[in-house]
């Protein structure tokens, strides 16, 4: 527009025409992406709500059932079990990821030679797919040929091999170890970025005042990292709540259906039983749960003081 106004001879009509063209052009540029989003995201989202009010088998008559799917959900024991399991899994894995990621971030923030290598090494599993890493861990955790048992046996920590993924007592820790291995690098990098944004002068000032290393972490780093923590927390909690690959691949929901996550239950209802209306209702409930969780966590973000 500035290019046009710099030429005084152009008439008002011409300017309006140019502006119309510019407006039209801009819309054309964003149209393909918008159409994709509408067809493959917005419409399916609305359809999910619509389907959740129907009895919707893959083949055969579908019928409007109002809120029946939702009331059925209340008495669906497996749904509640799945929700409880997913919540327990999230509550267990989140602190482990954060403590480990914090330590790793502290380490790779050191002024050591070759620290870039360590950073890359810790981060590398993040770029592998969760499905692929789950398959890798099925093998590592195998009782007969897996490295995990061999290692623990040779160290004398266990006396006989443990069937990690089939033992109700050990299946949760086994899955958590595998997922932490794959995802902790991501949280590490987020925290590292936050740490590097804190000016050194703040630490220097605190040191002059006699604050030790731990005091400086407690009173300077942690408060200033709050925003980063909140972001990393939301991403991590949502990721855990949506967990599917690790359970589908490593345990197939076993032993005794004890590791069926919410998404796994949605998948089973929708694509094994083909109760798609019920699956849609479960999806909507999951969306609502995640929205509530995010709002709670965003509160952490909001009352942060600017720096």
């Amino acid at each position: 527009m500035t290019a046009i106004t710099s030429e005084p001879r152009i008439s008002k009509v011409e300017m309006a025409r140019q502006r119309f063209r510019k407006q039209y052009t801009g819309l054309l540029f964003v149209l393909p992406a918008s159409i994709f989003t509408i067809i493959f995201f917005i419409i399916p989202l609305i359809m999910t709500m619509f389907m959740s009010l129907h009895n919707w088998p893959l083949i055969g008559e579908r019928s409007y059932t109002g809120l029946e799917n939702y009331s059925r959900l209340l008495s669906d024991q497996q749904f509640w079990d799945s929700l409880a399991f997913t919540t327990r899994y999230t509550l267990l894995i989140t602190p482990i990821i954060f403590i480990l990621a914090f330590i790793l971030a502290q380490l790779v923030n050191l002024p050591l030679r070759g620290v870039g290598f360590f950073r890359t090494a810790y981060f590398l599993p993040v770029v592998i797919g969760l499905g692929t890493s789950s398959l890798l861990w099925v093998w590592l955790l195998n009782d007969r040929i897996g490295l995990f048992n061999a290692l623990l046996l040779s160290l004398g920590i266990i006396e006989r091999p443990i069937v990690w993924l089939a033992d109700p007592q050990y299946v949760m820790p086994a899955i958590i170890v595998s997922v932490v291995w794959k995802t902790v690098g991501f949280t590490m990098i987020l925290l590292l970025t936050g740490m590097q944004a804190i000016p050194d002068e703040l630490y220097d000032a605190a040191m002059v005042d006699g604050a030790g290393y731990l005091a400086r972490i407690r009173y300077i780093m942690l408060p200033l990292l709050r925003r980063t923590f909140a972001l990393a927390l939301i991403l991590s909690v949502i990721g855990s709540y949506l967990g599917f690959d690790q359970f589908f691949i490593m345990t197939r929901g076993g032993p005794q259906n004890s590791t069926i996550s919410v998404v796994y239950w949605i998948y089973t209802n929708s694509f094994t039983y083909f109760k798609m209306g019920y699956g849609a209702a479960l999806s909507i409930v999951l969306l609502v749960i995640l929205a509530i969780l995010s709002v709670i966590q965003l509160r952490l973000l909001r009352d942060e003081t600017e720096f």
Partner: protein
Amino acid sequence: MSAATTTPNPQNRAGMLLSKGALYVICTVLALLFLFPIAWTFMSSVKPPAEASASPPTFLPSRVTFDNYFKLNDYGAGVQQYLFNSVGVAVMTVIGTIVLSTLAGFGFSRFSFRGKNVLFVMILATLMIPFQSILIPLFLILTNLKLHNTLFGLALVYITFQLPFGVFIMRNTFDTVPREIEEAALLDGCSSLTMLYRVMLTIVRPGIITVGIYAFLNAWNEFLAALIFMTRESMFTLPILLVTVRSGYYGAIDWGALQAGVTITIIPCVVIFLLLQRYYMRGLMGGALKG
């Protein structure tokens, strides 16, 4: 990354608690823990099949052979087919995501038009809704369009999932380009599209690479949507094939074949990440901190 350029005061870091030597030991042990599973899979995949499933496990192969890779051909349509499927979906997703994100990023950055904010928010907002919750209607839509069990259909879905990130990154990238450059190009008589093509694309190339890497990794690694939309065995992508291998024939799992399959699936991700790490991290910072 700015990480390498800053020279922090060592006293401010954990360095105070431990000696430098101890820190190196800790860092190295941790690096081994993270790298060992990957290295061991690579090693095992080139062992003779019997050795790959030996109990107790061995680390180094007694001799290097690719038998495990050939045994992958015993599954379904053969490993070339699944490699072709995965590469096909990933390439289509990368090209589609780059084209749509660049066009939209340019449009949102450089033009003002009615409905601009609504469309921008609409695309970005999909980031907050997990795709897992819309897979049922997506399955029906793809089936009705006769696009289920096609690489193209799966790529269309993956492109859409990548758009919020891609459009956001490209909009920000275009925002950092000074307007004088395009004004000069426009005065020289370029149309908007030629200008985008000739002038801007060279300047915003880093953004394009970032968007491309994420599109590739997500398409290559995605599991749940591929599992649902690709029901015909010949259309599986690599991760889905591996689940078939893991289930085994007659209850017996061919560990050698599984290790070979895992290796094939991991290598492209690791290579692309190591080569283009700088662009990958850019995306993480740009996407995470501003979003």
